[in-house]
């Protein structure tokens, strides 16, 4: 074996299982139902600590670290970590013990916005308001570091392969998918649990408000099993879609957004040797320029709009869009393509193409 490349791993990378913890509720079924019925999962936030003029958000119903994971090990756990631990746990449980038979060979790639800004600010606040600047809870210090959610998920579920935290604003879920696919293709693990997570907290609400956003925020996570088609079949899991490719394109002023989406989707289609009319399903992030660009390229696909239902789930958004595409893909023609696109106003457009 030279340089870890035991065999060609470029094709047949499939998504064989997934779980979601979303404003629709716990699990993939709740997510699928919410999406199918077009339920708007935004609720009134009764918390004086969030901005008064944005009091609706898509939050996971009745979720807290303790109610979701129990008393043990959750005393110092923050919300983003608990959402991640719970969602990764749902996938692991769903797949059964075989999934983790060789824990060193299972990777975990988790996307996040900036970890938990709530944890960071709370920790700093304790330091600034205590009698002494070091009157802080040392058990909460790791919560202020961005890889806490991925690392804690690994600890809870004994995932000992490559453990990576990715941040990239709205495109985080797509960047995580891209990174995870490369880990697999490079032979660094046999399967990857990949997804992204976001929390709704007063601090995130305020930062977003000060940054000028007034649309409702959302939270949650979706985590997918990415593995070789043969391994999925051997384990009794059905390939729900094949990951064909991911592509990204930058833009440097607002007017560049639409062209960047166009370029990125055209590059992906070219790489997939596919035509626009092969795209049966598209799940965009919901930016106006993005939608206009996609309308110009695509030929009457099924459109899936997550943001109006879930709120702006930021780092988790593209993973929810991917989950939505998998749900819609259950009834799509075999061999057609699903396209996930994401735009971040800071200058990134990204997409993933999956074959159903």
């Amino acid at each position, binding site marked *: 074996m030279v340089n870890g490349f035991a065999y060609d791993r470029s094709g047949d990378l499939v998504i064989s299982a997934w779980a979601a913890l979303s404003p629709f509720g716990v699990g993939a079924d709740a997510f699928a139902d919410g999406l199918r019925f077009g339920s708007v999962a935004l609720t009134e936030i009764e918390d004086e600590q969030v901005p008064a003029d944005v009091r609706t958000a898509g939050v996971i119903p009745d979720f807290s670290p303790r109610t979701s994971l129990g008393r043990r090990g959750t005393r110092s756990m923050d919300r983003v970590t608990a959402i991640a631990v719970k969602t990764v746990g749902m996938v692991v449980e769903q797949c059964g013990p075989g999934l983790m038979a060789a824990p060193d060979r299972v990777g975990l790639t988790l996307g996040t916005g900036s970890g938990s800004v709530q944890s960071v600010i709370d*920790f700093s606040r304790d330091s600034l308001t205590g009698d002494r600047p070091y009157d802080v809870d040392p058990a909460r210090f790791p919560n202020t570091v961005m890889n806490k959610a991925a*690392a804690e998920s690994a600890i809870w579920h004994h995932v000992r392969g490559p453990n990576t935290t990715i*941040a990239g604003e709205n495109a985080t879920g797509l960047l995580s998918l891209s990174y995870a696919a*490369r880990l697999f293709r490079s032979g*660094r693990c046999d399967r990857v649990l990949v997804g992204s997570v976001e929390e709704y907290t007063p601090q995130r609400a305020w930062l977003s408000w000060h940054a000028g956003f007034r649309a409702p925020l959302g939270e949650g996570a979706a985590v997918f099993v990415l593995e070789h088609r043969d391994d999925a079949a051997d384990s009794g899991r059905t390939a729900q879609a094949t990951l064909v490719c991911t592509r990204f394109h930058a833009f440097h002023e607002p007017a560049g957004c639409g062209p960047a989406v166009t370029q990125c989707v055209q590059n992906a289609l070219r790489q997939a040797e596919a035509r626009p009319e092969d795209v049966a399903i598209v799940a965009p992030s919901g930016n106006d320029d993005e939608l206009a660009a996609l309308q110009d390229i695509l030929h009457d696909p099924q459109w899936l709009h997550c943001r109006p239902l879930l709120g702006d789930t930021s780092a988790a958004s593209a993973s929810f869009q991917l989950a939505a595409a998998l749900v819609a893909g259950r009834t799509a023609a075999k061999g057609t393509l699903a396209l996930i696109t994401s735009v971040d106003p*800071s200058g990134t457009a990204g997409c993933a193409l999956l074959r159903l």
Partner: protein
Amino acid sequence: MNAPRRVVISGLGVLSSIGLGADAYATGLRTGRNGAKPITSFDTTGFGHGTGTEITDFTAAEWLRRADPATLGRAAQLSAAAARLAVEDAGLPDSALRRRTLVSVGTTDGESQDLDTLAAQQVRRGPEHMDRRLAGRVSAGRLAAGIVHELGLADTEAMTIGTACAAGNYAIGSGVDAIRAGDVDLALCGGVDAMCRKTFTGFYRLGAVAPDTCRPFDRDREGILPGEGAAILVLESLSAARARNARVYAEVLGYGLNCDALSPVAPDKATLAECMRLAQTDAGVRPEDVDFVSAHGTGTRANDLTEANAIREVFDRPPPVVSIKSMLGHTMGAASALSVAAGALAITKGFIPPTINHRHTDPECDVDCVPNVARTASVDVVQNNALAFGGNNCVVILGRCE
């Protein structure tokens, strides 16, 4: 199938407390410069001590050509400026930057100084009174996006990797995989972190911050010195570098990464040893090929003992094991990227950087840490260890490019 493509380092962009730019950095490493000084970026009143390794002579506007410094926090400024330096150091033509690229930047704390400031503003005046400009640029993804804007990249995949104190190695690893796979010919990878009150406070509370001096592998060690820095490397396929007659510092022979899944903070010897073996296998080198190990070497007892013992598990006769954190402090997400840059310079210039501030090697570590004075040596293979909170390990191996 084709053999995987070889990956080389053809440009270094370094901003550190011991030197700005690759040449100054190399001189700093070679002469054992100490970056420690009193912290000025935040008020250390109330702490028993306040020494760190800040960069005191960096003004973003002097380094950035395209990006507007006001739209970037300090970490993104350092990251974008380091990328600019790297591209200039590599002599990359604009045409190379128009091709498909990967940008991957490791960090522990993201835009941490802005978060420090926003926390202080809230404590003073309430959450409705925060600085809009800071709130709009605080997302960790901006560390990679800042590079994209500075260099005017278009067909690019830009990610920030938040795997804490091993993040620089992770980012370089992601570039290696993208180039080997043939996805890109060019990747800008490394790590960055700005000096941050929050992280100083956390490590101080853990009793892990040294009063004034970082002494890795010393029996009188007192802990880490929190610091800041950035290193962005130009990674290219060997064929692309050769095609443009680029100067090549070193080849990235391979890397390995794993996770102990045991503790949020404590490192694990066996998993770290396994990570070194993964890296050596990926690189196609044997332990006896390694000329020196650039250790994670934070200068805490937990790190130094675990790491030294893991090294002894992998190496029958360990080569020199040095910690450049003795000079640079702990630059968090930048640390392992700065260390890869140091390894590349060591290979090119023929020296092993020293572990400074060294008096008595801890008998429990028992490593040749190249105390205090750099060693002139022909260096062919360097192993660069990195550990992070959460049991995240990543080891990168560099070699002389023949």
